[in-house]
């Protein structure tokens, strides 16, 4: 058996002790995806294909091979299945994202952030 090439293989093992979520949004993405599958909004196959496609795009774009890239790809995949299977168009998602940004900017630090009536 030939020894593993150092450097080429070291990163995998180094990632072994990493926390699986760096930020709450990453956990939320997985929770939403699994819940949509459990609630039959999207099939397991459609979800895995969407995630696989988003991961392939990230790799092709040269994004780093790490957890942040993985969860960002998962978020893109989730937005797509929510549009294709949940009937929520990208425009509605973008508008809601902007509404949240306005709400954060309009809310003094420390106070709960709530969406305003648009």
């Amino acid at each position: 058996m030939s020894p593993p090439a150092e450097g080429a293989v070291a990163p995998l093992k180094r990632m072994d002790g990493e926390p699986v979520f760096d930020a709450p949004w990453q956990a939320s993405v997985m929770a939403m995806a699994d819940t949509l599958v459990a609630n039959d909004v999207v099939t397991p196959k459609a979800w895995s294909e969407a995630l696989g496609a988003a991961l392939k795009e990230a790799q092709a774009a040269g994004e780093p091979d790490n957890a942040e890239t993985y969860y960002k790809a998962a978020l893109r995949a989730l937005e797509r299945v929510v549009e294709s299977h949940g009937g929520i168009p990208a425009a509605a998602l973008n508008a809601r994202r902007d509404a949240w940004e306005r709400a954060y900017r309009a809310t003094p630090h420390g106070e709960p952030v709530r969406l305003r009536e648009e």
Partner: protein
Amino acid sequence: MASFDSAKVAEIHRQLHAHLPSESALRVKALESLLVEKGMVKSENLDAWVEAYSDEVGPKRGAHVVAKAWCDPDFRARLLSDAASAIDELGYLGNATAHLKAVENTDQVHNLVVCTLCSCYPFSLLGIAPNWYKTAAYRSRAVRDPRGVLAEFGVALNEDVAVHVWDSTAELRYLVVPQQPAGTEDLSEAELAKLVTRNAMIGTERDLSARPKGGV
């Protein structure tokens, strides 16, 4: 002085909005609030999911399944022939494990699990997949060079041990049943479960210690 002023303005701006979430977090808030409004998910269910998978599930359920298989030959036979119904006996069936295959290591065979497409994983048994499992490097190399990947994780296999690589899909996921360490025949099921690591149930660890390393 224009550059100084613009830098200062940018810094003030940053401080004022330091609590503005990241772009990803904003997009997640948008998704979640819309999905809740449309009745496709419930906030409390999402919160419960995150709480359970961040802490409670971990690989403990998988370790329990393996320890039970070591202690109970009938359960082991059921697990190997129909894993989903065997884990259902323990109440561990989830939508990610409705179709599950248990593959057993022997002196002649070592099993390694991967998902080459994305990151399919029996997370209702093992918790959230480790970050390395989701990398492009692992997903491609586990198939192309499984012995190299195993060596990196400290698993040195003799040439006469065959490596079986199992490619998970949305429809079929895998659980490796590692070999019981020698000298642990007198331990209880609960004590044995503490010896079973997450990586051993994926296949990137082979020889389990007869003493727990602080549990799983």
